[in-house]
């Protein structure tokens, strides 16, 4: 993938703006850049076609006496990641923001500001990370902060003034505490404010605490999200293996890929059921989940648990697959294919589903590109983006499959992308089972040197999941997770504007939001400050 010429183009472009190469590892190039030059460097990368994967603040004072901010850019055309490392002195912690050129950095810069106390110049900053009652000047990701410190709490009455139609924080459509405030005119949404990050559990900090070791973190990573947890644990172990140069047995890679696809099947079926429920078609919900139940049973049979599978280890997997399991997999996916085909036909024949899903929650291709959306949301807006193709990992380089692409960008297109992906996943599992190599499933002997860095990405059911790791002694020094929903939520604002109120829940659900993924470390308020008043007119 990585050709020397494309590498030298990138290096040359960045050296022109004062950055220099720090390290080249596998498909990652690390650049050092001063805080004054970071904006120009980011601009240079953007003009080469890069997109921002995420940024991360690291307290490197123990290593170099400085703070560091990493900007991770993906150049998917070249299959290369370019990482900018900006060093920030601890007694004068500020850097220049890249947001004016790279809007996608908005959230992660604010996260760095609030969790590490680094100020960003040249952009609007506001205190919004962490709960409102969190004291000033306490930064959880600084090393001197203990992971189990609990600053005094003030129980405040919240959301007393309700200006819009509150959807949440407890709302039957979401099943997760999130808060959207919809500003409506009649029954049409004119704007939306998002108040999220209720599920901040301090996972990144916990992983670098004394309580955890490299081997235990996969179980923590799995609990970032109860739907796509295996993606997170796989991505974590992949990042560690990459950093430490551990070669995983091929059979383990295949098993991981099979389980990842099983997880995608259950996730998409779950989503389809929820979408049907939101459209008032409970029969669709029940039948989708009835079909899904067999996938859950299969997952338990393969891994030992219906969810949070717990089979990932650094160096491989804990459970092997035998012939009985292979038979069960093949039988389940054959039945699934048949039943799913029928169900989709029946569902799409329901007039309300077609009429309410099509033309609502539209995200154009241009908007999708500008907002760097990922996964089915991107593919439904005509953006060809799939980590399994762009950065092939595990066993995906060995199988052939199609990436479903729709151009309408509406709720129906996102539904159809997921439907197509179910069929593709079934095909992928079949191929993987056919080619399953022999051998062991885990390497026991390995060594993880400290101070290594790596970026790993996996195509989760919801889109690209990125993990960035800096190794430490016995445990990660810094572990940064960027879940797909993190990237997709900002697109909701574009999608919801002009959508009928009745379709707002479906539109919110159509990005298949997973707030627990997004919220691991942050609390965020994008309330625009603009208070449009509601006019509740009669429905017509």
């Amino acid at each position, binding site marked *: 993938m990585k050709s020397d010429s494309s590498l030298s183009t990138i290096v040359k472009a960045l050296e022109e703006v004062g950055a220099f190469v720090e390290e080249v590892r596998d498909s990652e190039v690390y650049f050092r850049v001063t805080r004054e030059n970071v904006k120009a460097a980011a601009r240079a990368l953007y003009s080469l076609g890069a997109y921002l994967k995420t940024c991360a603040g690291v307290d490197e004072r123990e290593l170099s006496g400085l703070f560091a901010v990493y900007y991770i850019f993906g150049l998917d055309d070249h299959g290369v990641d370019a990482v900018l490392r900006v060093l920030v002195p601890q007694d004068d912690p500020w850097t220049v923001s890249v947001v004016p050129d790279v809007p996608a950095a908005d959230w992660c810069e604010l996260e760095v500001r609030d969790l590490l106390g680094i100020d960003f110049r040249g952009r609007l900053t506001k205190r919004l990370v962490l709960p409102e009652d969190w004291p000033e000047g306490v930064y959880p990701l600084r090393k001197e902060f203990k992971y189990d410190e609990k600053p005094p709490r003030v129980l405040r009455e919240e959301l007393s003034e*309700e200006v819009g*139609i*509150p*959807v949440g924080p407890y*709302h*039957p*459509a979401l099943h997760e505490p999130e808060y959207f405030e919809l500003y409506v005119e009649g*029954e049409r949404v004119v704007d939306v404010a998002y108040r999220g990050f209720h599920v901040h559990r301090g996972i990144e900090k916990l992983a670098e605490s004394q309580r955890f070791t490299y081997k235990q973190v996969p179980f923590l990573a799995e609990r970032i999200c109860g739907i796509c947890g295996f993606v997170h644990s796989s991505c974590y172990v992949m990042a560690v293996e990459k950093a430490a140069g551990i070669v995983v047995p091929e059979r383990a890679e295949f098993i991981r890929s099979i389980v990842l696809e099983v997880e995608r099947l259950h996730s998409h079926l779950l989503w389809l059921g929820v979408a*049907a*429920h*939101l*459209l*008032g*078609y*409970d*029969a*669709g919900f*029940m*039948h989708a989940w*009835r079909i899904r139940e067999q996938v859950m049973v299969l997952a338990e049979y393969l891994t030992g648990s219906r969810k949070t599978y717990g089979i990932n280890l650094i160096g491989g997997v804990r459970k092997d697959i035998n012939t009985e399991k292979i038979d069960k997999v093949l039988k389940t996916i054959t039945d699934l294919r048949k039943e799913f085909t029928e169900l989709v036909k029946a569902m799409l024949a*329901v*007039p*309300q*589903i077609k*009429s*309410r899903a099509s033309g609502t929650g539209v995200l154009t291709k241009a908007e999708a590109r500008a907002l760097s959306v990922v996964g089915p949301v991107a593919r439904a807006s005509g953006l060809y983006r799939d980590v399994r193709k762009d950065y092939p990992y595990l066993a995906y380089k060995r199988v052939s499959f199609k990436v479903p692409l729709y151009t309408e960008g509406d709720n129906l297109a996102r539904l159809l992308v997921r439907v197509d992906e179910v069929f593709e996943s079934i095909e992928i599992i079949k191929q993987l089972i056919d080619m399953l190599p022999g051998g062991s499933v885990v390497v026991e002997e390995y060594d993880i040197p400290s101070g290594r860095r790596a970026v790993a990405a996996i195509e989760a059911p919801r889109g690209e999941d990125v993990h960035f790791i800096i190794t430490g002694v016995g445990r990660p020094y810094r572990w940064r997770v960027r879940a797909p929903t993190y990237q997709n939520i900002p697109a909701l604002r574009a999608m919801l504007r002009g959508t*009928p*109120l*009745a*379709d*707002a*829940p*479906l539109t919110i659900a159509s990005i298949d939001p997973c707030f627990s993924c997004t919220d691991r470390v942050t609390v965020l308020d994008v309330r625009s400050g603009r208070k449009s008043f509601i006019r*509740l*007119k*009669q*429905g*017509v």
Partner: protein
Amino acid sequence: MLYSVAAAVLSLALAPVYDGLERKIRAAIHTRIGPPILQTWYDILKLFTKEIVVPVGGAWYTLVTALELLALIASSAILYHISSYGLGHATLLESVAFIVLTSVVATLAIVRAVSQNNVFSVVGGFREFSLMLSAEPFLAVSFLLLASGAGSLASKSIATAVLAVSSYVISGRVPYDIAEAEPELASGVNIELAGPLLGLATISSVLKKLVSATLTALALISFVGLSGLSSLTAVVIATPVVWLVHTVVSTILGRSRVDLAIRFLYVLLFFLSSTLVLSFGLGL
């Protein structure tokens, strides 16, 4: 008269059972077992054992809920009274009283919804209003037409179709349950209710379904031309059958959106009504 009262009382007592049956059948279409047939009764009885929480609005509010229930009982009583001699022979007074009562029920429900200090409830109330505006006039016209006994078989059939559709709409089922649409409105008009008041509202919603099913059953039985006790019995028996059809229809459809619902209803009902007028004009 006595028979009509007996039929009305029987149907009122059976309505929650029909509702339980509806849930059972819906469950069967979902490939699951579902609740016991008496489940709706259990729910109502439980709600009445709960403490009374009077929402903002207080006594006025309780009054509206009780009045709504009374109006529903009265309208079903009228229907069973009419049943004893067939829809074609209803007096003008009876027909008008029925129409007025149905509008009163709808109006009270809307009043109840919008008088609450809750956005969801208010939105739900407005939706109910728009829905009522689109269904109620057609219900009235077709009912009065059938009650007058005039017109040919063709025009009667069309009027029955209009009545069947508009009475389905007032039953508050999918796709027209948009007033209490759970996903976006968190049970909408009922959100602020609790305990016995919610119990009353639950009975009201069951009775709405009863009135809707009885209405269609009555119109259909009228074609057969029965009268007296046999007509009454036929209506009482046909009611759960219509209820069953309503159940299946509501299970295989999704929820509509207020604008789509109204557009669809207007198109359908206007089409049917113009055919009706045409058939009258041509004297078919």
